[in-house]
């Protein structure tokens, strides 16, 4: 019996360990402790008596539509008010938000597919997919690996800057239309989809691609005939996954002045109509949940194969 425990002990000691993982975990814990105990963030301040008094007034008074304050509150009245708000701005805001996200994600997907192809290291080599033995002078790479490296770097640049900041900068340059919001979402998501597409291409089974290459296919042939159909399913999975985040992001870009849900939210806030503000935020939540369900169904459908 003790012999077996000794064996377990030996196995336990021989388990793979990494100093990097250990130090990272330690650093994470230390940083969290530091932030909670030695920074300006304090929940005691957030829920101080003064602020709670403010909250109390908000819930009992500001939050309700002015028509329904005091004695005249009724659920039917609230329903009528919601319908009225929905017709006034709600429907328009939801439609614009949806359009912005759909257009943005499609633009991002097209750009991302390009970035992915140029960023995939297996495609961007001198003799894609050919085994080294069959290639005479295989070390001459035409600098293509540099292209791949550069493309990956561009992807990181595109996604490192948040959508909101992209939109803010673009708005100053392009003036008010829906373009800044669309482009901001497209740029950020192109970075993300480009990286995911590159990984997808690198993880494809190489035998069929090698076969195409060995029978005389050029790099473009392999990309169009082999990689495109094989990678499309997985890429579409990522597409729908990003679509749902796009809708979420599109709701807020309006706060900068573009016509999406956020615009009407900010308007309502500026006029002190907190009830309208909350209702619009609720509508945004509904829209995001709807996009969530659509994306979930699409992905489940795709996983059965296309």
């Amino acid at each position, binding site marked *: 019996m003790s012999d077996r425990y000794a064996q377990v002990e030996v196995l336990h000691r021989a388990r793979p360990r990494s100093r990097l993982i250990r130090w990272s975990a330690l650093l994470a814990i230390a940083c969290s402790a530091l932030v909670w105990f030695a920074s300006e963030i*304090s929940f005691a301040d957030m829920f101080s008596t003064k602020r709670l008094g403010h909250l109390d007034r908000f819930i009992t008074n500001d939050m309700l539509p002015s028509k329904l304050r005091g004695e005249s509150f009724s659920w039917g009245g609230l329903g009528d008010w919601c319908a009225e708000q929905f017709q006034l701005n709600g429907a328009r805001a939801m439609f614009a938000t949806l359009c912005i996200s759909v257009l943005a994600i499609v633009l991002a997907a097209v750009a991302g597919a390009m970035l992915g192809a140029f960023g995939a290291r297996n495609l961007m080599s001198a003799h894609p997919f050919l085994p080294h033995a069959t290639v005479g002078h295989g070390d001459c790479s035409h600098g293509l690996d540099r292209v791949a490296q550069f493309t990956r770097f561009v992807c990181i640049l595109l996604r*490192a800057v948040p959508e*909101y900041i992209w939109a803010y900068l673009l708005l100053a340059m392009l*003036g008010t239309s829906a373009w800044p919001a669309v482009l901001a979402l497209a740029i950020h998501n192109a970075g993300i989809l480009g990286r995911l597409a590159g990984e997808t291409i690198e993880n494809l089974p190489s035998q069929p691609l090698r076969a195409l290459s060995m029978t005389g296919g050029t790099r473009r042939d392999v990309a169009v005939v082999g990689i495109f159909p094989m990678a499309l399913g997985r890429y579409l999975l990522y597409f729908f996954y990003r679509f749902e985040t796009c809708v979420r992001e599109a709701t807020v870009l309006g706060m900068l002045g573009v016509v999406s849900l956020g615009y009407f939210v900010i308007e309502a806030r500026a006029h002190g109509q907190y009830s309208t503000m909350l209702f619009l935020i609720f509508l945004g939540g509904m829209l995001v949940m709807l996009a969530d369900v659509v994306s979930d169904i699409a992905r489940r459908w795709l996983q059965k194969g296309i």
Partner: protein
Amino acid sequence: MAKPLPLAQRLPTRRVRILTGIFLAALLAFFGLDLNLGDLIPRDSGFRLVLEFFGAAFTPAFTYQSSTGLPEGTSPFLFKVGRGLWTTLTYAIAAMSLSLIGGMALGLLASASFWERRHPLWAVLRWAVRLLIAAMRSVHELLLALVFLATLGITPAAAVLAIAIPYSGTLAKVFSEMLDESPREAADALSYLGANPLQVFLIGRLPRAFPDIAAYSFYRFECAVRSSAVMGFFGFTTIGLYLRQSFENLHYREVWSYLYALIIVVLILEVWSSQLRRRFVA
């Protein structure tokens, strides 16, 4: 022998139909938004701004771009960048530590594998948790921040909580999916040996999903850094606040310094997480 269909009838495969559908949707959206391709080209003042702004990209500022109007004893510019970055990171770390706890707890409750081998009535609780997660995810952190600002006034904890709520939801959803997709052989073996459901889950299931969970958490931290940077646009003292002020003062070289600072942080996180992932897989 069946005659092969003419090419034209064979062509619209499922794949072609999906792609056509997607592009049609994009076209509808284009017209729904009343967009104009001409608006993509910046005009006069916009064009000058584009030139000036992108010209500044090559010469980011290391000191204040103009020293007029600076009060006596202002700390140096790079110090300001560092402070903005540090605040951004503190918000992100605080929000992430909250969301990891919340996401883990809700993720366990929402996963099918946690409730396996238990009474089927527990499924009610599981679906309730899933609904809660969807609701938490559905409202964007900036909208939540706006609600907190309206109800409680400006306080750093409000920004942290605004980020933490949707992030907990997202982490919970992804964690639960990862737990359910992790290989189940070890869990089954433990179950046949007579382990109770909790042991089966904690020893057989959870460790198998852990590498994925750690990698995804790291990615979400990167997102949290971005979210907290944007919080600056609402008056919190993260890097977004300084970026906006510099842009409004037309100090584009300073704007680029902030952008580069943000990009460098994301680059470091990227390298770090890819190194970690390599260790986990090995």
